[in-house]
């Protein structure tokens, strides 16, 4: 069973994207192409799953996953796959339950890890016990508003097991294993 990993950059106030899904701030703090941790994640990821929304935001900035640094099979979960798929797109739109999508991606990953992109999908994976690892680059910035890493109105405690802490230039890298049960 391949590990399912959520890799994300977060502001100190807990946002993974700013207002209107702004992502420019991420590029101020690091470039995935040169970063060691991100490089390792790119190297060890065999397949990626993301939501339709995340796909559109990713694509709005730069074509390709990790700006083209990562290539491989990827799956975009949507209830309404578009009739015409862009010819440059190397991934697939799929309309199915998350469990099946994770199983599909695990097979496609060929023994490597499965990457999850997007807070909403990651939270659903977490709630269904499908997420194994979280890798966070914590940036010294306050965004004030935007998309939160984790939001569960009414509260929902999730205990994580730290496996690595490292200073990475202006960022702090934090890696966690998701405790089962």
């Amino acid at each position, binding site marked *: 069973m391949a590990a399912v990993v959520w890799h994300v950059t977060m502001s100190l106030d*807990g946002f993974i994207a700013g207002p209107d899904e702004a992502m420019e701030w991420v590029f101020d703090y690091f470039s995935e192409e040169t970063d060691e941790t991100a490089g390792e994640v790119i190297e060890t990821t065999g397949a990626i799953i993301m939501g339709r929304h995340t796909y559109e935001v990713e694509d709005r900035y730069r074509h390709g996953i990790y700006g083209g640094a990562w290539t491989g099979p990827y799956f975009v979960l949507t209830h309404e796959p578009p009739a015409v798929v862009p010819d440059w797109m190397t991934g697939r739109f799929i309309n199915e339950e998350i469990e099946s999508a994770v199983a599909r991606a695990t097979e496609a990953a060929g023994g490597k890890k499965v990457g999850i992109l997007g807070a909403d999908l990651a939270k659903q994976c977490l709630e269904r016990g499908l997420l194994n690892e979280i890798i966070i680059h914590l940036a010294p910035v306050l965004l004030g508003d935007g998309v939160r890493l984790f939001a569960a*109105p009414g509260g929902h405690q*999730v205990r994580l097991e730290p496996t690595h802490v490292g200073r990475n230039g202006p960022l702090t890298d934090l890696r966690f294993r998701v405790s089962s049960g």
Partner: protein
Amino acid sequence: MSKLRLNMSMSLDGFVAGPEQSEENRLGVGGMELHKWLTELDAFEETHCEGGGKVNASTPIAEGFFENVGAGIMGRNMFGGSGPRGTNPWRGFWGEDPPYHHPVLVLKHHAREPLEMQGGTTFHFVTEKIESALEQAKEAAAGKDVSLAGGASVVQQFLAAGLLDEMLISVAPIFLGDGARLFDDLGDARPRLEQVQVVEAPGVTHIRYRAA
């Protein structure tokens, strides 16, 4: 140059207290988890009542909380609000020997006489703006730093006004999902921060930021 410093424990998703905060459970559901790293330390004894027996990478962090601190600032809720009806004068909920051992300025709506406690802590009540409170605290600190004790809304006011010089955030490996956020209501203020220190310790990561 006297600095305004903050130490705060926060969940990975940004909360300093869980949901359903009440008089009985001031940290809300799951809030105590954020302070576990501190309460299990032997060094906890120096600033609070009883140490937890452990010595680890968090020890120098906890010992440094009040190092070179000459005065503190806190909000009225952190002092203990206005107290139960009929308690006059209300002496806060920090006990007769509060853990501060320095003058503490309490931001309050109504003026009252200073309250001298045991062990060197004196509460001074300030009704003026935060800028003026900071000025008075720096004067009281006599060249040493000023520690911003909290709570979250007071921290937000100082942050938004760009008055905070240093923050030591202790990040606990837990999601709470809801509760009181440390960085909230900042309006359009976007203080620039620089990460200056990262300390890995059992059950917590300490990160020190300086205003850039």
